[in-house]
């Protein structure tokens, strides 16, 4: 609907994103014999979720190995920046092949 109150040329209120598309890591061919890190923000029953995943995946992949969330610290607390920044180093030290991160809730 046209209006008679003048014409406005209006500017974009956002600003350009400063992040480029980043490639994902190469996926694994199998979880058998692989070491999986558990990352947790210590809420929403992640401890029970990981216990169930350990149980279920062990049946499919008998030689799967786990690194507990206790090794990494809280990924969403007051120490988030430090904990997340340390992940690449910790993964190397612990010979981690893949990671599961929770809980989005």
């Amino acid at each position, binding site marked *: 609907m046209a209006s008679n109150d003048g014409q406005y040329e*209006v500017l974009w209120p956002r600003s350009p994103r400063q992040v480029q598309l980043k490639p994902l890591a190469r996926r694994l061919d199998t979880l058998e014999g692989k070491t999986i890190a558990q990352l947790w923000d210590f809420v929403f029953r992640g401890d029970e979720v990981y216990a169930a995943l350990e149980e279920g995946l062990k049946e499919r992949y008998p030689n799967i190995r786990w690194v507990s969330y206790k090794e990494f610290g809280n990924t969403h607390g007051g120490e988030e920046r430090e904990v997340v920044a340390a992940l690449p180093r910790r993964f190397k030290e612990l010979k981690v092949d893949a990671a599961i991160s929770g809980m989005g809730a």
Partner: protein
Amino acid sequence: MLRASVAAESAGIPTATLVCEGFLGLAASTSVGLGMPNIPVAAVPGHTGVQSKEELRRNILGVTMDDVVRNLTGEVGHAESETEPGARDVIFKGGFDEVNQYFYENELADGLPIVPPTREKVEQFLRCTKRSPDEVLGILLPDSRAATVWSIAVNGVMSGCRPEYMSVLIALVEAMADPYYGVEHSGNTPGGETLIVLNGPIIKTLRFNYTQGVMRDGFMANTSIGRFWRLYLRNVAGFLPQKNDKATFGNTWRVVVAENEDVVKEIGWKPLSVDMGYEAGDNTVTVSRFTGGNHISSISGSTPDEMLPYLADAVVRQYSWQIMFTVGQGMGTLRPLILLGPIIARTIASWGWSKEELKQYLFDHARIPAREYERILRDWTAKPIWNLEEEYRLGRIPRAFFESDDPDRMVPLVWEPDDYMIVVTGDPARNSAYVFAHNGVLGYPVTKKIDAAAAAPRRATKKG
């Protein structure tokens, strides 16, 4: 979770991110700003918070586990970048109603009419600062957009601000970009809203309300700058409701609260800005997020001993799950804020009490039994690992939380007296207070100086 997953993927480690069903949209929005829009997630049916142990186990084994395997071993989707306008592009031409319809339909406005951000209007704002329009004050998550002086001016125009507010707006965005504030958490489910507290002579220069009805809309500076904060969170940080803003209920933005520095000076106290590390007389903004609060009516008595038990009790009553920011998720980051009516502050000070003594009183008396801490965090909100004795023995929390093993011992709400923030404001003629429930590390108090020296002298608009 996604930030940790992105760090892992960047390090060459494939990930599966566990996301409850109702949060899959949030994950999709957030992943774009992190540069990995195709990062795979594993769905958790329903919400873990309301499922029996058996139901949760069944859901994980029946649904989530297959997603995890696919995430870690299967094909991943192709990522494409979005095309967006340039920073200074004209994005629409039309009348007032048409502009507003366009902004609303494109999620660039908050549901109220905006002032059309024309180049002429934006340049009026830019003339009120010496800062370069291209200066970047920080990169704001979740959208990872640059917080530029230019974008501050555009959103300032839209919010109904006046050009001379520009130095305040810049200081606010500097606070928003400060890592200690934690803007990336602004879309969390408790939906806390930021409160801006203003200090300094600029309160009077720009005619902020600092007396009766201080939190009510109706005062241009207080209201339009409060609206600016939320619009900037939406347009530049990227917090859109039902996308990156996952507030369960949410709040409307709050108007700016200015302190009554006349009364503060009269009673010999210091303004909040000094408590936050600045000099008396500095113009400052302090931002922090609060999930809610309550008016505490009719604090009666003629001495601190008569008045303060009620206030301490009122502070305790505003806090429930938020104590996870004292012991747990936030560890010592809970910062309760109390707005104190001037006649209450005057009465307390007349007995020789400093603000520090008031904070000490609250630290000593606003307490709850230890068993309640553990009941709220461990039993009621299913955060199972928090135990005050264990945390104390690990050296993670102060002695005040474990002075004995009596489960009925009274423990403080905060780590130290200075965690309390006191602001004198509101109706000078009424004996009431307002207590805010803080959001801890997810909106930690940050103060920035308003750079009045960077405010350029006003110049007449040149035409032609």
